[in-house]
């Protein structure tokens, strides 16, 4: 336990020192990795812990980004209230969509969320007056020199990551987390045990949406330009799922480990083969699914041997 605390302390110190030691390129890259770690952790709450494969989670990212962008440009909000509104919108939409879609299970839920996300994307794209339509929308940038701005967003994402990790860690240890896991393991049984499954599922998704929406808002302020095809891109969710698979779904640290591994691979490989960029992502997905569907973390935490990495013809894993 103590050695764990020391490792965490060293990691945290490195993360805090990093933006002052590294060049802008690396700072941005790590910021981006933090962002994916946050998004994957948020997805982990609904998909990893509760067992609902929310393939449409980008809807909250997109809505968070657009809420901030629209409020800042059209209404003249400053950033902090716009951020709060983004969070509120994401949670509200999650509750409404959750009431409709969380009755569905398995594939039906996954595809239902995907359909809802695409539908929202087209609505946003067609509200040209407000959202700028296909032209996207430009957010008033933060003033200051580029290095300071880089550092600012680095710490925004880092802070967000710390917060979500603490939340997920707390949740995984308390009633809420046990309810989520019970739902994942066997929803009927959980219901019989007196868990109000609908309420807990909506809570899980709203929590997931809260962080996804906030991340979207930070992204909009950071990139200063957003358009619907980017911020509602399904590919991001796919990447998050891959991160969860690499790192280990339903664990606190899995998404962080997964995000760092995937981003490292992407830096090493994709930047050199720009034409094969997506193809290699596809290949990684296939290989990860085939050879380590339980995630790297399962090796560490449960002391599994290398042969357990090779699956599972009939592991009746969670549904």
């Amino acid at each position, binding site marked *: 336990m103590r050695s764990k605390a020391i490792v965490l302390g060293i990691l945290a110190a490195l993360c805090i020192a990093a933006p002052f030691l590294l060049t802008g390129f690396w700072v941005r890259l790590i910021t981006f990795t933090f962002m994916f770690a946050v998004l994957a952790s948020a997805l982990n709450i609904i*998909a990893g812990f509760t067992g609902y*494969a929310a*393939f449409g989670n980008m809807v909250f990212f997109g809505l968070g980004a657009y809420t901030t962008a629209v409020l800042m440009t059209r209404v003249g909000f400053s950033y902090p209230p716009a951020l709060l509104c983004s969070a509120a919108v994401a949670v509200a939409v999650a509750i409404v969509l959750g009431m*409709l*879609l969380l*009755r*569905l299970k*398995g*594939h*039906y839920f*996954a*595809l*239902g969320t*995907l*359909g*809802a996300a*695409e*539908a929202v994307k*087209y*609505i946003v794209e*067609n509200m040209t007056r407000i959202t700028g339509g296909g032209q996207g929308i430009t957010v008033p940038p933060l003033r200051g020199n580029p290095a300071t701005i880089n550092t600012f967003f680095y710490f925004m994402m880092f802070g967000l990551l710390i917060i979500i990790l603490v939340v997920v860690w707390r949740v995984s240890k308390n009633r809420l987390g046990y309810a989520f896991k019970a739902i994942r393991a066997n929803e009927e049984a959980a219901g019989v045990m007196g868990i109000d499954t609908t309420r807990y599922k909506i809570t899980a998704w709203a929590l997931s949406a809260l962080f996804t929406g906030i991340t979207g808002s930070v992204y909009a302020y950071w990139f200063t330009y957003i358009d619907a095809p980017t911020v509602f891109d*399904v*590919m991001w969710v*796919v990447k998050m*799922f*891959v991160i969860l*698979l690499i790192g280990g*779904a339903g664990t606190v640290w899995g998404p962080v480990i997964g995000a760092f591994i995937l981003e490292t691979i992407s830096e090493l490989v994709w930047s050199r083969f720009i*034409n*094969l*960029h*997506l*193809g290699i*992502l*596809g*290949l*990684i*997905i*296939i290989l990860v*699914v*085939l050879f380590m*569907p339980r995630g790297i973390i399962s090796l560490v935490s449960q002391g599994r041997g290398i042969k357990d990495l090779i*699956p*599972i*013809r*009939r*592991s*009746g*894993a*969670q*549904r």
Partner: protein
Amino acid sequence: MLLQAVVNGLLFGAVYATIGIGFSLVWGVMNIINIAHGSFIMVGAYLSYTLYAVAGVDPFLSIPVVMTVLFVMAYVIQRFMLNRVVRSSVFITLTFTFGLQILIANVCLLIWSADYRSVKLPYSSAGFQIGGVVIPLVRLAIFAVALILTGLFYLFMRRTKTGIAINATALNFEGAKTVGIDVYNIYAITFGVSAALAGAAGCLISPIMSINPFVGGPMVAKAFVIAILGGLGSTIGALVGGMVLGLVETVGTVFIPSSYQELLGFSVLVLVLVFRPQGLLGKRFY
């Protein structure tokens, strides 16, 4: 105008049925949502385009070739890769087929570039009129071929030993194993047949639609709607679902501005899921 839209919708609905049947077969038998199904259609369309552009083969004649190629490709994918994880969670198989879709799209992008391609048939403008409604010959032929394929598939599932084995495996995996069915081989055949039908659909759409490496995604959404509308694994259901989707799309264009077209498809998807997840005919399995 409305009548024309109805006719167009029904004619194209048969192609949708071909698309939906394969998708719903894989889903019904193996509980896999094959996100790459759209990519199989796209590959079929590209092969048909290439055969036409290089050797002048009519898309209708290239159907058997394309179906064979896709059958083999999908059989290999299922046999050597998907079978390893097919019995695990939804989460895993869904992610796998997503990866497959991305990979196929990228390969197509490298081979055929991002330009829109379509087959320009010399007889593409031929057609006739009945009571003010224009019926293009190509679309009629596409309709007929799609119906024939659907009929053949129906017979395959009912009359052949392999088809019955597929049904048996879908109904009871352990039971099928007990009576000596090589279930993993059946899985591979199922995936192959599904891809072959997708390939045929690709050939059929190549003369009337432009394709590029990114059309796979929207196609899957449609296949999903058709499968849901018709009920899992039901051939007749897929035919009904395909016709309904064709009608909704074409009749929709009469009343709704074209920029909302895509929205319409996805809204139908969500609404059907929420209100009628058991399908229009309310029947599951065969």
